[in-house]
């Protein structure tokens, strides 16, 4: 094990897959010089050169479509979309082509693309660089959505995403690009199926936290522990396909569920999990499921970001309200 930053883990994952498979390449804005706008692929150009680390003009839509075309010709593009807000510019390629071609060809032609971008806030740069986009894309059949919180998970899951034959939207938490965590030394991948993990075991309330909210959840759990409340924390890590059984089993044990994500509560992925849990575990629930998300407002720049996003205090209050 070694402590590594998030962006180091991501670039190591891409490098490992590029060594494994000559058809894997990285493309995006500034990938040669900066390793992409957030430096998630820093250093790859030195090893793999111009042929496999390909700079693109500022044209997220055009080059995401380009990636789809390269993918059906046998390549495995890894597309750096920088901030996930920019995935909206590329939405036609991500939504209308890659998840649909396999169906339209009756299973014959897959589109193995991995769209990678920093998701959520932490940069404090305002409304168009701070959004959490996962729920916008979760409504698209055919697209997989990966949302890790730690460097180790990002590495293992990115490798699985690149190996996957289906299109994957890989969202890492942009505010944690320098976050360091223990990353195993050995060669490993984390399969996308059944990827949920129990971060902390507990008996009173299940706290499901997506991406960076996992760290806030851990702080909340420590506070609550002092008050005699035992919290079980689940990080789903992959939203599509969602590890439903892991969530259901936890709720069947604790009988209570609080969901935290940085996307606004309204229309957020928490609503989907809420529906799934009440459909399968209604009789196990002893309290209404609570959701903690951002306020329904654009994300402001600067210090004011904290007023909008979920906080440890809000999570603590939500957990208590279920008891």
């Amino acid at each position: 094990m070694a402590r590594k930053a998030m962006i180091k883990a991501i670039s190591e994952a891409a490098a490992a897959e590029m060594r494994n498979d000559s058809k894997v390449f990285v493309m995006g804005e500034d990938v040669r010089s900066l390793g992409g706008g957030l430096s998630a692929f820093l250093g790859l150009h030195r090893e793999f050169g111009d042929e496999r680390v390909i700079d693109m003009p500022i044209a997220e839509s055009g080059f995401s479509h380009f990636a789809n075309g390269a993918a059906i010709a046998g390549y495995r593009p890894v597309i750096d979309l920088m901030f996930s807000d920019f995935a909206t510019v590329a939405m036609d390629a991500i939504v209308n082509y890659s998840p649909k071609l396999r169906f339209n060809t009756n299973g014959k032609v897959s589109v193995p693309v991995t769209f990678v971008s920093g998701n959520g806030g932490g940069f404090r740069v305002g409304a168009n660089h701070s959004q959490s986009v996962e729920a916008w894309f979760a409504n698209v059949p055919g697209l997989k959505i990966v949302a890790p919180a730690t460097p180790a998970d990002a590495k293992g899951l990115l490798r699985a995403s690149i190996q996957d034959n289906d299109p994957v939207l890989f969202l890492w938490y942009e505010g944690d690009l320098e976050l360091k965590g223990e990353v195993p030394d050995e060669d490993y991948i984390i399969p996308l199926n059944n990827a949920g993990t129990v971060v902390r075991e507990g008996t009173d309330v299940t706290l499901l936290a997506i991406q960076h909210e996992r760290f806030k959840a851990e702080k909340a759990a420590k506070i609550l522990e002092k008050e005699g409340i035992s919290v079980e924390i689940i990080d789903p890590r992959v939203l599509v396909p969602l590890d439903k059984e892991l969530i259901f089993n936890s709720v069947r044990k604790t009988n209570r569920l609080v969901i935290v994500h940085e996307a606004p509560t309204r229309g957020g992925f928490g609503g989907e999990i809420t529906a799934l849990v009440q459909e399968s575990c209604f009789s196990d629930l002893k309290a209404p499921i609570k959701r903690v998300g951002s306020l329904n407002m654009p994300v402001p720049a600067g210090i004011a970001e904290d007023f909008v996003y979920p906080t440890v205090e809000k999570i603590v209050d939500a957990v208590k309200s279920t008891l």
Partner: protein
Amino acid sequence: MSYSKEQLVNMYDRLVKGRAFSEKMEEAVYAGLVMGSLHLPHGQEAIQVGIMSALTDKDYISGTHRFQIGLAERIGLQPLVNEILGRTTGVNKSVAFDFHCSDMDKKVLQCMGTLGSTYPTYTGFAWALKQDKKDSVVVIVQGDGACGEGVVYEAWNLAALFKVPVVYVIENNKWAEGSPITTHHTVENVSIKASSMLPTQVVDGNDVVAVRDAMEEAIKKARNFEPNVVELHTYRWKGHFCGDPQEYYMDMKKIEELKKTDCPLNRFETQLLEKGIITEEYCNNIKEDAKNELDEVFEKAKKDPFPTADDIINYDWIYASPNTGGEL
């Protein structure tokens, strides 16, 4: 370029078949045989025949939503008609309809419902062919209307940067959905907008020989990694889709006039008759044969089954990798 008598007659036969197919599709819509909306190619047949006759077997094609004649030549008339009529025997088992249908084995790439996006998509595809040292060219056809989309310009820029083997065809039929080209562009030749990035040609799209000539040259250039644009001028005789209130927004007198003066089939037929390459008897026979063949193909398609829910609800068609959740 000069063509042999056989080549000229071959192009004529294909034009006749194309026109007969246009008419048969329209007939099928009004007979209630087609679900969804069909975009008819009447009056634009020379473009499809000219492009397809210039393509070689190693080249790829992606058409517009009005490219049924070209699709039929590659995919086969029966599997395409079966698809249009929504039968399980269709080229994509009825799920793709005509404008989403494709057949990778026959080098037919899917058209997209969102206009313009095939340009950048297959620019990437062509980049991959170049990387793999395949000697193939990709021809992508979009309309003048689609050239209002921003991705079209992104694609041309990417093509110029990466020197991909692509020919971008602009089928300028003067109409974009329900409005004339003047609503969409301030220039007559849309390709002028590409000319800062790529070489362009503007050609009479109702002259099948001129189309083929232009395409042969364009494909040759593309094969040498010189991507380029060919704008083919024509005129849409029908509404945006079959059944739309065409009479309300189009000048039907003008269309009737164009049918007399600028019909791609009649123009070529007259030329060949004047040169003594074909006879009127030949023309009549080939038209009769084309009609009979289409009648047979449509009758056969009508006997094939519609899909059942079990045929279609197949998650293996959606996700390639094994999954545990069925529908995920």
